[in-house]
């Protein structure tokens, strides 16, 4: 098969293929589940971008996906694979909730930045474990970062059932955080919160970091040509550690944003798998911050649309993950078709 290699084609092949393959696979699945396909499609469109209500929901889901996706972009660029973002999110949410519960006396403009910084540090610390094991002991960061997700979620569960338990004995939740710890709303009378602005600001910073700084260049060399990096005298270990720390830290901020902007408390299932879905976001965005912004909006819309679809037609929500899997697979396949060898 001969494929013209112009830029737009290359850029759009994966997303278009992903949409087509998803439709081909999901339509029979939806029909098999006994739902009406027109009703399902309508719900998907209205729930994602078709109504104001849908758009707000999409924005809310986009925020953590974008934050984590940006971190994973930096991390994947270095050649490391962090699949522990889910756990890093939980740890960030945990520390943010702790501060929000205990430092309520501090005024909001001061407390919010403190929470962001500590959530970043906590997520970074959690990501530091796998990268240290990788750099100094040669242990696959893929496995250790993933296993730590279980540890993190159990720590959170332990805290919210024990020391940080809220008023309702039947629920695994904390008390509400202080009013000063709550992020303002950006659209009046909706749940759309300031977290999205934070995520966009961080997207700009990550873009600057990757493309306008010396460190960004080092990152690219370490990821693409590790042998060259060693010969050039770069401190490869340090670059890898920083890449992972940034990735964990941004996942931690995603956790803080979910607590401060959306739930105002910590609950056991605070993330519906954002840490995993963001892997697809980073790859679909071609490891480019601008691309990741678009990919996160796409995935956020998809998530919200599918939830609406489930509410209206009763289609099982697992279909979100099926589509995520298909998206990553089609990215790989389209890269293979374009370049004939592995590129990502």
């Amino acid at each position, binding site marked *: 098969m001969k494929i013209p290699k112009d830029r737009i084609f290359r850029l759009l092949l994966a997303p278009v293929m992903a949409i087509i393959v998803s439709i081909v696979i999901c339509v029979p*699945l939806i029909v*098999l*589940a*006994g739902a009406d396909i027109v009703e399902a499609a309508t719900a998907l469109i209205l729930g994602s971008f078709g109504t104001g209500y849908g758009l707000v929901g999409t924005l809310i889901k986009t925020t953590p996906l974008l934050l984590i996706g940006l971190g994973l972009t930096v991390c994947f660029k270095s050649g490391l*694979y962090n*699949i522990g973002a889910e756990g890093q999110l939980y740890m960030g949410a945990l520390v943010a909730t702790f501060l929000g519960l205990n430092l309520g006396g501090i005024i909001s403009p001061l407390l919010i930045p403190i929470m962001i910084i500590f959530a970043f540090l906590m997520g970074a610390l959690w990501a530091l474990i796998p990268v240290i*094991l990788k750099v100094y*002991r*040669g*242990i*696959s960061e*893929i*496995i*250790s970062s*993933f*296993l*730590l997700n*279980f*540890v993190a979620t*159990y*720590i959170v*569960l*332990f805290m919210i*059932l*024990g020391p940080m338990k809220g008023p309702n004995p039947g629920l695994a939740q904390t008390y509400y955080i202080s009013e000063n710890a709550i992020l303002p709303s950006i659209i009046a009378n909706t749940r759309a919160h300031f977290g999205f602005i934070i995520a966009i600001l961080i997207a700009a910073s990550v873009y600057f970091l990757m493309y306008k700084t010396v460190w960004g260049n080092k990152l690219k060399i370490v990821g693409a040509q590790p042998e060259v990096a060693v010969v050039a005298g770069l401190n490869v270990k340090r670059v890898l550690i920083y890449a992972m720390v940034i990735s964990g830290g941004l996942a931690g901020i995603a956790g803080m944003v979910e607590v401060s902007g959306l739930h105002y408390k910590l609950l056991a299932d605070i993330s519906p798998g954002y840490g*995993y879905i963001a*892997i*697809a976001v980073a*790859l679909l965005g071609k490891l480019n911050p601008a691309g990741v912004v678009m990919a996160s909006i796409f995935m956020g819309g998809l998530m919200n649309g599918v939830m609406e679809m489930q509410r209206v037609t*009763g289609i*099982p*929500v*697992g*279909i*979100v*993950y*099926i*589509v*995520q*899997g*298909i998206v*990553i*697979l089609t*990215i*790989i*396949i389209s*890269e*293979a078709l374009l370049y004939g*060898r*592995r590129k*990502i």
Partner: protein
Amino acid sequence: MIEDILSAGVRIAAPIAFACLGELINQRSGIMNLGIEGIMLISAFSGFAGAFLTGSLLVGVLFGLIAGALMGLLVGVLSIKLKANQVIAGIAIWIFGVGLSIYAYRAIFGGMSIPPTIEGFKATPIPILGDIPVIGEILFRQNVLVYLSYLLVFALWFILIRTKLGLKITAVGEDPKVADISGINVFKMRYFAVIAGSALIGLGGAYLPLAYIHTFAENVVSGRGWIAFSLVIFGRWHPLKTFAAALMFGIIDASQLYIQGSGFAVPLELMLMLPYLFTILVLVIGGTKSGMPASLGKPYSRE
């Protein structure tokens, strides 16, 4: 009490042992199958659905094997034919497996008011062997699939280390170029290894509903695939050592469950995270690359 824990440990180890041995075959041939968790989930569901709908546990086992083999074919096409990045392909297959198993379960069984259950494999003591004190109780009063895991580990050890087929699989994982020159069909051999290995991984997945929890739950595999992946590294890609690692893991998990059940004042969540901490510890102790197939994760192309 010790016998109880060890006997439960063997039972818990069996699905991990199947998954480990399957992954080991994959990796010996040079394919790093990181989608193992997703394959186990799909097979767990297929096995459960097969057994529930036909009433036959054997059909359940068969469904698990077939689902695993089909996923293996997908892994093969991605990593052998398309020469994809095997880490990303693995992540994709894992997420896809999570989605497909949850979706299929809710689509088929979601309408039921009580979660559906199956009879499941029961313990069938082996005559004579089962009567040996202590050892008999631990090893030979188990279900049929556990016995199958004993047979399998020795069979696999024999095949991989002592036969021509095993030598060929190892050769394409070590140096596919040399293997190719000496007349081995690298692609065919890798497809064979990845499909056969994934079928075994599927058996590990199907074990969970068929012989362990006797129903299907959305998080039924809960990291066992990743744990199996780690234990292959710890077992230095050797069937017997890897099997021993799986047994050790089973015993640790069984002890943890025993402590939970015995009413010690240890928080449940802390006990539940033990198996994962243990696996990380295992990697820290024995997670070196010695024994790793030299061409693991590297696609092969003929120039």
